């Protein structure tokens, strides 16, 4: 196994970079990071639209959420792969294709998390904010969302962990992320599939586990801040 690591660690980490395009673990982390970063604001917007008092906003978004939730991610990726070029008029790379698919898919799931988080904030909070004269969106931003985000944290982490693992589906459209690279290595070595896929599994585990731990730490810190007697 050490030999395996010795021979292929650079390929595993960055793919063919710098001669070729970036790949491997670096590409996985980049893709997951960007997907998280972009899907969160999308999820916030969709989630707020889903519980909006304005019907014209609420209904189409609710329909969209039900549709996307009802189909597998793999299909969303295929759609992005085959439809996106028709829509934009030019070929998009595998990375962009995968990113678009992930942002849409996760944005939809995050929207439901946002909805649950906002609805878990006691009704009196919005009433108190509105009674002071704060407009709806201002009350949402300054009073409701900060509390909702705290309720949402465990579910958010769950979704983010999921996103990291979902990047492996990039394999199907030939994106050279870490799973793709690992199977390439496996093809080159031929004799050590168990070791190769064990290392791949460990890699995902370390990524996801450290994210969970960081979130747990954040949660505990938040709980302490809220009880501060000054």
């Amino acid at each position: 196994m050490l030999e395996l690591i010795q021979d292929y660690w650079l390929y595993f980490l960055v793919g063919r970079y710098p001669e070729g395009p970036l790949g491997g673990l670096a590409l996985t982390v980049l893709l997951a990071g960007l997907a998280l970063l972009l899907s969160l604001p999308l999820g916030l917007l969709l989630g707020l639209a889903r519980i909006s008092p304005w019907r014209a906003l609420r209904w189409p978004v609710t329909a969209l959420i039900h549709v996307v939730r009802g189909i597998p991610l793999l299909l969303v990726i295929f759609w992005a792969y085959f439809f996106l070029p028709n829509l934009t008029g030019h070929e998009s790379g595998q990375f962009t294709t995968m990113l678009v698919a992930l942002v849409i898919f996760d944005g939809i799931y995050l929207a439901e998390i946002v909805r649950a988080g906002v609805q878990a904030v006691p009704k009196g909070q919005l009433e108190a904010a509105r009674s002071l004269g704060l407009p709806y969106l201002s009350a949402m931003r300054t009073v409701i969302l900060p509390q909702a985000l705290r309720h949402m944290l465990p579910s958010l982490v769950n979704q983010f962990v999921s996103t990291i693992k979902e990047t492996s589906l990039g394999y199907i459209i030939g994106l050279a992320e870490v799973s793709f690279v690992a199977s390439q290595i496996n093809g080159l070595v031929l004799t050590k599939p168990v070791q190769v896929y064990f290392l791949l599994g460990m890699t995902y585990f370390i990524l996801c586990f450290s994210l969970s731990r960081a979130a747990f730490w954040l949660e505990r810190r938040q709980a302490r801040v809220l009880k501060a007697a000054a």
Partner: protein
Amino acid sequence: MITFDNVNKYYGNYHALNGISEHVSKGEVLVVCGPSGSGKSTLIRTINRLEPIASGHITVAGQDIHAPGLDVNDFRSHIGFVFQQFNLFPHLSVLANCALAPQRLRGLSKHEAEERAMALLERVGLAHKAQAMPAALSGGQQQRVAIARALAMQPPLMLFDEPTSALDPEMVGEVLQVMRDLAHGGMTMVCVTHEMGFAREVADRVWFMNHGQVLERGSPEAFFGSPQHPRAQQFLSDIRKSY
């Protein structure tokens, strides 16, 4: 200050407010009491449009509050509302709770808003808790902060929806004291409360509500001394038994 003109409200088939036509004068301290489900909380919540009404008119300071084109946010910012459950914002310090709305809505700088908040916290005896988070305060303290938060918008009218009902008995006094001071300062107040001592001492008038109607209205002496309506007599004897 406040006029109700034939106000009706329904929850499904239930007639929650039944043809209310009443008037509250400027500077008046009004106590609304009645059995639970009588519509008193609903009534007070209609005054700042937290509850919509089915028909009728409500006028506050000469303004029909359901007039089309009314800026409801600006309208609400001139009415203080104190809730049974305090509803302090748990993610903000006591000071920030009181400074938030003046800063956002009155164009005060952060410094000015905090100065105003401090002055009010001083007034309710909680200046030393300014930096604390709400969860670190007792119920009575939280409700005093909630009153200070409402006062920070300098409203000419304050509404209290059972402000002491969620408190342990030993904390009721401190909240009533703040309300008493406010009343003596000339504030127009509508208080839904069962605190009969407070009503006797501070109220200019008492309304007794039952089944969405104001059955009896009068001075505290008249209401507590010789209630006219049988339902009011029974209500008073019921609450006296429990004290």
